[in-house]
């Protein structure tokens, strides 16, 4: 990883005759990447320790010559410059961090020979599986044999046979013939997932990746090994043979399973999502994400998805439903149940709605166990957003006890729920029957059944928006697939209910910038893909439920988890 460096920490290195200044200690592969020189590699991964076992990154290295006795530079009379002492043998790039004056050559004949040789050895026992291999299209072995390989095979002997279609765990399938023994997966399991179950057995060309006997690769981070495997040895059992990757459209999104807000890429084709993978963000999730977050897209096409606007259980239209809801609110005694799963834009409009109705606002908190890595204790992705937009002033509780009491006292007659199941949040069936419910949500539940007005809305994969994660980093997600017919964007519905003239995300952001002090300079378009850190100091005293996770340390004392 490249840390932003003070100018004093910069050293000058020479890559293929070009001088560049890079932070001291930068890995040679990363230094070359800065000037768009590709040093092919397999085992090197920026977030894992370096083992140097694939030998693909061989390059030539040298240092400026100095006289051993006087330390005076030795000049080369031919060029008039300081002579370079090239190391006579090739060196691995990944195993070297730059130091001042380092010279490297990545295009010399020796380097070319090395790469061809390494590629040839890697391909000796490699099966001709590309047509049935899920990695094809994003395979480093394919790319680098095209880019740096010899182009033909001299191997006439029989190839080694190794186990295929091995289930390493509930989500990962292993094809040992395709493994190039880079050990990335082993290092990931040991260093990041802290579940050291993988290893090599046997020697030489019989080396085989396997699970420790009696164990499985079952931890909640197992699919990251599939992401980092440079070849098609480790494949996702769920995505296996579903679609070739070159057909898939990539959309940047955010993992909504907890307040970590891991950056993700949603891969879809023609309105169907096929997989979710992590997107690198060195301040949030590095290059990882939890397996549980990769399954969230399954609910998009589930059978209990709401697709019809209902008023008093009869099919209706959006505008009629909005009018019906407005009629319900006219009777007074309205309350709003917002959501920590809504985007910042939706929470802002929920607040506008609550202000217009002079209604109280409650949120439902979801707390689970944090895994100290990329799933935090707060399972709402955007409680911080509700604080920033002023929707709530204090942290939500898990049950709506105040609202229940107000309903029992007969003070509340109508409740708007933005995707929250009121029954799950502690309201009894009798309490639900006493009030008129306006339900905005994606899936059917007890609340949508009890509701007078049901307006189907869109999932996080079908709309644009932003979320504020536990670090108070505002991050945006984009629409990956079109919503099913009948589901309307939450912001449109909320804007209509609140009587706000905002039709798209840009116009909502104009209002947000005008009204929310913390977000004055922002618009949806100018939030960078890696997010923007907001000022957390106004909320420093709140007892947030999260414990420590990757790139996050709680500042306030951690509240006892309920």
């Amino acid at each position, binding site marked *: 990883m490249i840390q932003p460096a003070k100018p004093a920490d910069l050293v000058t290195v020479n890559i293929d005759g070009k001088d560049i200044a890079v932070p001291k200690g930068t890995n040679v592969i990363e230094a070359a990447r800065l000037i768009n020189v590709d040093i092919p590699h397999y085992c090197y991964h920026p977030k894992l320790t370096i083992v140097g076992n694939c030998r693909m990154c061989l390059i030539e290295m040298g240092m400026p010559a100095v006289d051993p006795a006087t330390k005076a530079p030795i000049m080369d009379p031919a060029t008039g410059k300081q002579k370079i002492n090239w190391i006579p043998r090739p060196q691995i790039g990944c195993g070297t961090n730059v130091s001042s004056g380092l010279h490297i050559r990545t295009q010399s004949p020796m380097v070319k020979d090395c790469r061809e040789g390494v590629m040839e050895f890697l391909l000796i026992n490699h*099966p001709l599986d590309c*047509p*049935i291999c899920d990695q094809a299209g994003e395979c480093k072995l394919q790319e680098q044999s095209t880019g740096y390989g010899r182009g033909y095979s001299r191997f006439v002997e029989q190839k*080694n*046979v190794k186990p295929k279609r091995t289930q390493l765990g509930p989500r990962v399938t292993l094809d040992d013939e395709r493994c190039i023994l880079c050990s990335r997966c082993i290092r990931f399991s040991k260093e990041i997932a802290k579940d050291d179950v993988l290893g090599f057995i046997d020697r030489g060309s019989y080396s*085989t990746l396997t699970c420790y006997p009696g164990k499985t690769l079952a931890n909640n981070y197992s699919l990251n090994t599939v992401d980092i495997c440079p070849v098609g040895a480790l494949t996702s059992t769920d995505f296996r*043979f*579903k679609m*070739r990757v070159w*057909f898939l459209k990539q959309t940047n999104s955010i993992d909504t399973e907890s307040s970590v807000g891991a950056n993700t890429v949603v891969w879809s084709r023609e309105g169907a999502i096929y997989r979710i993978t992590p997107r690198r963000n060195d301040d949030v999730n590095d290059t990882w994400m939890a397996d549980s977050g990769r399954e969230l897209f399954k609910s998009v096409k589930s059978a209990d998805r709401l697709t019809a606007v209902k008023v008093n259980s009869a099919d209706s239209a959006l505008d009629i439903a909005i009018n019906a809801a407005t009629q319900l609110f006219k009777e007074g005694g309205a309350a709003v149940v917002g959501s920590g799963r809504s985007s910042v834009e939706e929470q802002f409009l929920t607040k506008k709605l609550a202000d217009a109705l002079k209604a109280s606002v409650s949120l439902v908190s979801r707390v689970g166990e944090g895994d100290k890595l990329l799933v935090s204790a707060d399972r709402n992705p955007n409680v911080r957003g509700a604080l920033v937009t002023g929707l709530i002033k204090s942290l939500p509780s898990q049950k709506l006890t105040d609202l229940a009491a107000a309903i029992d006292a007969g003070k509340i007659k109508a409740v708007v729920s933005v995707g929250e199941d009121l029954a799950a949040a502690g309201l009894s069936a009798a309490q639900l029957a006493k009030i008129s419910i306006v339900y905005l949500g994606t899936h059917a539940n007890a609340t949508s059944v009890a509701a007078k007005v049901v307006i189907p809305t869109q999932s996080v994969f079908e709309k644009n928006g932003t979320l504020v994660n536990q670090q108070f980093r505002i991050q945006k997600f984009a629409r990956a697939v079109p919503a099913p017919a009948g589901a309307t964007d939450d912001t449109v519905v909320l804007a209509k209910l609140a009587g706000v003239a905002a039709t798209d995300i840009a116009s909502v952001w104009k209002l947000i910038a005008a009204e929310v002090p913390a977000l004055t300079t922002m618009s949806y378009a100018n939030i960078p893909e890696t997010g923007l850190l907001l000022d957390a100091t106004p909320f420093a005293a709140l007892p947030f439920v999260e414990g420590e996770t990757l790139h996050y340390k709680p500042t306030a004392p951690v509240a006892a988890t309920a």
Partner: protein
Amino acid sequence: MAVIPLERKPLSFAERTYLPAIASGLKTTLKHLFAPNITMEYPEQRPAIPPGYRGVPTLVKDPHGREKCVSCQLCEFVCPPKAIRITPGEIPADAPERAHVEKGPQAFDIDMLRCIYCGLCQEVCPEEAIFLQNQYSMTGYTREEMVNHKDRLYELGGTLPDEHFKWDKKLDAEKHGNAH
């Protein structure tokens, strides 16, 4: 645009009688009256198809009657008018003789209303499973009828000789190969 007036050439006397033109027309008619037929009683008679002809794309089986396509979807990718649609599937691990191939098409559709008979699918196929063969006439009353599904594609394709038997070699290696 400039207008260029052209002078019309006056007809000669012989031309004005139309007799030479009539005579030459009759000569052509007479010649064909006695020449051998070049038209054909289609569809009872069918033309001989020259080698290399690009007819309807079809899926073929190997000489042992086994499916060759592994649903790599390269033809779907290369097809310029996007006529091909494949749903890949997994060959179950207990399938006899076929388990080692692992992957095969669940569904394979070629929309012949889209196909332009370019032959790129045949060219790109790494398994030599799709061929444009002699079939040239496709008819149907509905759009749906003009989509060839997997079973129809195999029916049209039949069997072609195979010199490689790649997957047999693979199975062979698995049985007797360099297993440790």
